[in-house]
């Protein structure tokens, strides 16, 4: 298969410097884009069918069209690369940040040009120390090489780019929480509408885009939308970084055509379950997606396919549940995370998730009661999309609601036995 996103990645993971990156074919999309009108760039991206890789899958080119452009548009406009990657079980952007920083910068220049942005921030989670170092170095190199700063390549287009290290909170990954974090505020989400494209960072038009999404842009510009669509095995264009973690033989991350099936990922790439363990289920796209089970193994990992199966492609990095791991314990672990990461803004989320965590802990510790399951179901409905302010809580209850559906007996066994069947003591 043709490598796209991982094309420039060296076996040792050390990124190419600007010069080497150029020699390997990098930065070609910049002069190409600068020769076009910004609208044309957007048009190409629209035609490519690129959809956001940050979890929601919104069509990228279309998102850009909401940004006011032209002489009357407010300035400065902003572009933010969302490199927060705090979704448990997700480890795809780290690879691109650490090993192909110039590819991200190149993609950002293209995106910034298309929306006529003046300033770009790379919002990286604070724990990604190596990524931050390498990004800072790469940005400095890009300035030196004339790809950033004033009047880029004599085009009249100017772009400043800065790396921002996060203070750490899952909510910083939510696009409007990210904007508040960049403004030095608590990362509570913002009201939409107005969308950030109209009033975003510092009240100005802003686009927030995932690292993987942005990293695709140079290639789309270089090879065209049709080529990009052709990379995929499904209706969603391009390739995708897919990951597998959990008790499989070879956990890992692979760039594969969009639409690769769960089975192929699990069995061929991850080498199947570890010896003696059986597959029970999988969170296909990170912690905030619904469980799928053995009946879904042939589901294609693209936006539509996973959705039809009752879950979401999310980040495309899956977490595998085996038969020696307690599903209640796993869900408890997840809800602990979400309850802790709730920003505390809206009631269903801050109250519902902490309540869910308490119930799950008590079930797991042998203090469950039959009515607990009803209460958990109540919380799932309570935190449903639309009921909460942002998508954190609805995402948070996805694994819970599906676990209650697929692993209900396991919950009941805990309550009946007043202890966790997976615990030996």
């Amino acid at each position, binding site marked *: 298969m043709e490598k796209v996103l991982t094309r420039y990645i060296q076996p040792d993971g050390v990124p190419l410097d600007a010069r080497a990156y150029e020699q390997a074919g990098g930065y070609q999309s910049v002069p190409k884009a600068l020769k076009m009108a910004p609208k044309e760039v957007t048009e190409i991206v629209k035609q490519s069918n690129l959809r956001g890789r940050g979890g929601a899958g919104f069509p990228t080119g279309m998102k850009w069209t909401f940004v006011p452009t032209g002489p009357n548009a407010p300035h400065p406009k902003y572009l933010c690369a969302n490199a927060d990657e705090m979704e448990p079980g997700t480890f795809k952007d780290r690879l691109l940040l650490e090993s192909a920083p110039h590819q991200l910068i190149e993609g950002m220049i293209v995106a910034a040009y298309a929306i006529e942005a003046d300033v770009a921030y790379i919002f990286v989670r604070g724990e990604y120390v190596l990524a931050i170092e390498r990004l800072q170095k790469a940005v400095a190199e890009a300035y030196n090489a004339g790809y950033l700063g004033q009047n880029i390549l004599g085009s009249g287009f100017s772009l400043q780019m800065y790396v921002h290290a996060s203070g750490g909170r899952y909510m910083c990954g939510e696009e409007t929480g990210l904007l508040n974090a960049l403004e030095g505020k608590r990362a509570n989400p913002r009201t939409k509408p107005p969308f950030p494209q109209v009033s975003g960072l510092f009240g100005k038009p802003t686009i927030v885009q995932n690292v993987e999404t942005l990293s695709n842009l140079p290639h789309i510009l270089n090879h065209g939308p049709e080529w990009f669509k052709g990379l995929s095995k499904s209706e969603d264009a391009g390739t995708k970084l897919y990951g597998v973690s959990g008790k499989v033989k070879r956990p890992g991350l692979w760039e594969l055509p969009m639409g690769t099936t769960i089975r192929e990922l699990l069995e061929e790439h991850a080498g199947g379950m570890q010896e003696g363990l059986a597959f029970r289920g999988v969170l296909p796209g990170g912690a905030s997606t619904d469980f799928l089970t053995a009946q879904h193994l042939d589901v294609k990992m693209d936006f539509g396919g996973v959705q039809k199966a009752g879950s979401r492609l999310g980040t495309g990095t899956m977490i595998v549940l085996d038969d020696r791991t307690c599903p209640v314990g796993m869900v408890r672990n997840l809800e602990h995370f979400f309850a802790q990461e709730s920003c*505390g803004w*809206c*009631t269903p989320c801050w109250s519902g998730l902490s309540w869910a965590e308490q119930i799950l802990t008590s079930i797991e510790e042998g203090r469950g009661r039959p009515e607990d399951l009803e209460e958990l179901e109540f919380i799932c409905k309570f935190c449903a999309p639309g009921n909460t302010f942002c998508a954190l809580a609805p995402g948070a209850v996805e694994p819970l609601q599906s676990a209650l559906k697929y692993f209900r007996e396991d919950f009941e066994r805990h309550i009946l036995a007043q202890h966790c069947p997976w615990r030996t003591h």
Partner: protein
Amino acid sequence: MTKIFVDGKAYEVKADQSLLQACLSLGLNLPYFCWHPALGSVGACRQCAVKQFRDEKDTRGRLVMSCMTPAADGTRISIEDAEAAAFRKGIIEGLMLNHPHDCPVCDEGGECHLQDMTVMTGHDYRRTRFPKRTFHNQYLGPLINHEMNRCIQCYRCVRYYREYAGGHDFDAFSSRSQVYFGRYQDGVLENEFAGNLVEICPTGVFTDKTLKRHYTRKWDLQFGPSVCVHCGLGCNISAGERYGTLRRIVNRYNGEVNGYFLCDRGRFGYEFVNSAERLKQPLQRQDGKLQPISKARALEALAGLLADPKKVIGIGSPRASLEANYALRALVGADRFYTGLSASAARLTAVALEMLRRGPARTPSLGEIERADAVLILGEDVTNVAPRMALALRQSVRQQPMRKADQLKIPRWLDHPVRELAQDQKGPLYIATPAATRLDDVATETYRAAPDKIARLGYAVAHALDAGAPDVAGLSEAERSLAARIAEALKSAERPLVVSGPSLNSEAILQAAANVARALSAAGRAPSLSLTAPECNTLGVTMIGGGSLADAFQAVKSGSADTVIILENDLYRRASARAVDEFFSSARHIVLLDSVTTPTVQKAELVLPAATFAESDGTLVSSEGRAQRFFEVYPPVGEIQSSWRWLRDIMMAAGRREAAAWQDLDAVVASVSDGIPALAAVAQAAPSASFRLAGAKIPREPHRYSGRTAMLANINVSEPKPPEDSDSSLAFSMEGVFAQPPASLIPFFWSPGWNSIQSVNKFQEEIAGPLRGGDPGVRLLEPSAAEPRAYFTPASEPTSGSAGEWLLVPLYHIFGSEELSRLAPGIAELSPQPYVALNPEDANALGVQEETSVTLSLESVSRTLPVKLMPGLARGLAGLPAGILPIEGSGLPAWSRISRA
């Protein structure tokens, strides 16, 4: 108007509001927490969820937050929908996971929005069985109590305190289910409007600490619709009493005046009513000491004093009602009545009044001030002089930035998007004062200078607006361009406002403000001019008319009078001790009517205990020119009675039969309105005592008022008859119908299911709009249509002292500068000690530091005070706290030498 459908019924509602606001305006019950009419919508609590349907055919619908959804034409929603109702019930369950359920010991109990909403949603059983989180509470000062465990994380407090009131020492800490609302460290809340947290908080986290010391449940309080007496703005208050003591003040909504908020002086200053300084009995000086005497003896003595009416003068008061002042005037005769204002205050108020009558500028209500879109403040430290106006001005600076939101079609009630779009953009607001003010943080530019220079800047602004306005010479380049910028900002605004007043005792400043207003009008704008008034009835007593205190002094000095009746006035606050002492020693008889002990009491021969606002009725004219009636909260005890009643009794004792007509308030009001043409409209300030609501009087007590038959059982086991109130249509009782009284007669806000103050929703024509039937009060001042007066001409030179002299200017303090509120312990605790303020660089030049004792020499007195360094003070000025130190010489500003003590 747009049409919306709620549960299948069509309603016409005002466009441009949220569904929540529309539903509440329709009188529908829809629970909410994070939304507040003054704060707008943020969608945090999710309590206001309703089902929205796409069209008639849509039967499934989806949940939306009514506070976040516009009431667009054709919107179809259901409040009753089972799923929506279940969700709302769930929200309460969520909110209450950590709530201590301590209603029986909570000060909010019985008037708690959380209780109301809990009942409204039907949540009644807490399913969770897990431990609740516990927080430490903070010390927030003498006025506000903190009990964080009751918090439901609705964010109202922090939004109000930081975003609305502009405070910086309060915030939300931590995250998830552990968000903590408080200060970084224990300490007094700095914001002057912190007390509103008590009403903003929908549960018992922030409660009134002064109430706590004499706690009574809302349902056990007897209320009176009243008007704040602690500054000239006339905020409407609802005062509550039990067992003969005043227990607390809460906001009484008036859409055009105070809206939803009060300042802390107004909310907590009431404790003077209960203070040990209260005068409770008639006193007569015997052997040099004041001794209690009976009312009869007092009147008898007075009749004797009044034997020769030609020798009697009356000194009225800007803190006494129109009725009391008028009664005194009737007693002594119009030509022997003095307003009780100092010479300079009298002159300035007269000038101000003339300006507002002549126009072209119109005196705006506080509501209009809030909507002003460009403001120039000349000489007033608004926060400390007319506090509630500062809160209004703080909102006014958002007017222009909000237009950006209009362009993007972001509704103004969508609070956060509007703020995010505007970012830190504020204004225009220009402030010219001698020292820094608490509004500087939202000012476009500030100008720090001596009063004369402030006036000159004003003249220059007027000239920049209209070349026909006289110019001033000798301005610096910087001052000139500042004046040009101010003129430009005012001129390009739709609703420009000039704020000024008498605080610096400068006629020039007032004239400059008038010139700016006049020039704006010449430039085709409709300007507003708001002039502060120092006391609650300064304007009223001035409208009654009469000489100043200096004239009264002269009358006694010249021998044309020897007997003085003083009404609710401490003359030592209005003239130098020397002048007042001289006055008192040359007068033969001094009679004083007052409610509290003051230095003047010590000079009186006869003292009559007057009722405070809480025990009397009357009318006050605010700085807006709005006459508003306040009503007794409870009958005065013992010998205390309203000043006008004392004056009537005196007249009767002196054989003046015409006073016999004054049997009740209406009769006095009628006399005022007949006697003073300018006050003809005051009778309309509130309905007369004959008004009946569905045939009955309006109860001052909630219908659950408890213990009426038992509360006085220690005195008498038989239930006493409730006192009669002949002065108003309010009853000292809980009996009466539940119906909405006229706006000026609402003792307290309550409605079935709405026990908290948020029940005001049920009393408004539309949410955040006027009370039904129109907001209380009647405006007495409208600019005349006649040709406006000519421009004032500035003095050619600013005044200057001789070498080595400092110009002493008064610096005002919300806590401390006002006479009555200082007697409230909580306010007293926050009042500053005497000081002399210097700019640090001036102090440096003088070789003094913070706390160094320095001596001021003024006229013939000298005074030693500690230095307070004040970086915002203009160079060459020295500031003295107003109302805290006795007045020196002929008052401030004054030139003085300063030397190390």
